[in-house]
């Protein structure tokens, strides 16, 4: 579904030196897979995820999404992004819009569905995450866990083919992590293709089809969750797991 070929991303530091955040990543994500990416902070895992929908422009390399090279110059990236949902660490709900407007804005403006159909779908999704009573409030009045569940709903309303999660629980109070992970788990159970950057090792073990360990801009290790956690191969991963588990 998504094929990543030799993906590199470099940032220029203010002093002119070059910071190589992604140093050649090759990977293939198949339909229905749940890929969980873990790694130390600054390892490039978030940058990798943000490259997948070109929020970050790769310096070189290719990203092929359903046989289309989305890094090619003439690609209409907006059309591609309609099919890839993204959930952010800081929720990024639109502060000037109510919950319902947050969810229906994109599908309606992009003419993916009629206003009535969007509202109906949003209502159904809000019911699913138990937040229908919040439909007409502004994001400022919501808790972090509620905001993140609504952010997930907002992405889902576009009927995406794949969902990208960028540390979705890292900005949450501990007692709210569970409610967000539950929504993600039920999404996984329905067969959604998911790419998740997270520090929630329990989630990785339970839900992932593959776990990737990214460090210094490379995929150092990839394995099924059981092998990944019970039998880590590289010294770096053993060190990392001994610190986080």
């Amino acid at each position, binding site marked *: 579904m998504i094929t990543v070929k030799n993906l590199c991303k470099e940032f220029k530091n203010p002093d002119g030196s070059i910071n190589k955040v992604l140093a050649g990543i090759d990977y293939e994500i198949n339909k229905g897979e749940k890929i969980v990416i873990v790694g130390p902070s600054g390892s490039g895992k978030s940058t990798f995820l943000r490259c997948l929908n070109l929020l970050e422009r790769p310096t070189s390399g290719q990203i092929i999404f359903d046989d289309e090279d989305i890094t090619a110059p003439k690609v209409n990236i907006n*059309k591609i992004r309609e099919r890839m949902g*993204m959930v*952010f660490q800081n929720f*990024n709900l639109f*502060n000037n819009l109510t919950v319902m407007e947050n969810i229906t804005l*994109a599908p309606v403006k992009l003419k993916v569905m009629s206003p009535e159909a969007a509202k109906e779908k949003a209502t159904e999704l809000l019911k699913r995450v138990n937040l229908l009573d919040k439909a007409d409030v*502004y994001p400022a*009045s919501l808790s972090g866990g509620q905001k993140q569940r609504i*952010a997930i709903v907002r992405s889902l309303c*576009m009927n995406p083919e794949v969902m990208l999660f960028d540390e979705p629980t890292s900005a949450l109070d501990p007692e709210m992590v569970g409610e967000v992970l539950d929504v993600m788990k039920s999404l996984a159970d329905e067969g959604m293709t998911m790419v998740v950057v997270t520090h929630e090792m329990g989630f990785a073990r339970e839900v992932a089809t593959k776990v990737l360990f990214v460090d210094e801009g490379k995929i150092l290790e990839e394995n099924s969750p059981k092998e990944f956690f019970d039998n880590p191969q590289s010294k770096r991963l053993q060190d990392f797991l001994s610190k986080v588990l």
Partner: protein
Amino acid sequence: MTLNERFIAAFVTSDRWKLYLGGLGITLEVAVFSALLGLLIGNVLALMKLSYKEDGKPTVFNYIASVYIDVIRGTPSVLQLLIMWFIIMASSNNGILVASLSFGINSGAYVAEIVRGGILAVDKGQMEAGRSLGLSKAATMRYIVLPQAFKNVIPPLGNEFITLIKETAIVGYVSLADLTRVANQIASRTYDAFMPLIGAAVIYFVIIKILTILLGKLERRMRKSDNR
């Protein structure tokens, strides 16, 4: 002369109060026209100054806006008014037009920086979220960023309008009889500066106080989405 007689000389004799009203009319006319022009120019300049190419380099519009803002902010507004009156629009004797243009062009530079600041103050994540859903940059700007930026800029824009109203007190230079000039003329006719000048000051104060109250109302209404 008693205070009462001085008041009558300054405001009542030969219907002088009408002169103040006429002066206030001119002051407000110039202020409103130039505020509207300033808003228009300022918003366009702000968007120009925020335009970057795909590779992150500034566009040519960006440079043009920067030069405009530098030149306007780098020269006194009295001088800009005189240049407009005696050089650029020397063939026109429509003082209101010349003053409105001059102040509007001047105000535009300040409004541009206010609006730019307001847009930059909106969290980057808002734009990213819009883009991640497939909305274009323009659509995200229109539906998400600008409405939030508008809320940010009301206090400084109000400040700018208030400054503008008072700054028009220099239009006497292009022979417009605005409130300040009228008060000054009456002072020299009655040989009493106190009443006309204090009177004019009170009128400015009341006008600006009313504007302040209206802006406060607008701001409270715009902040309704912040309520917890």
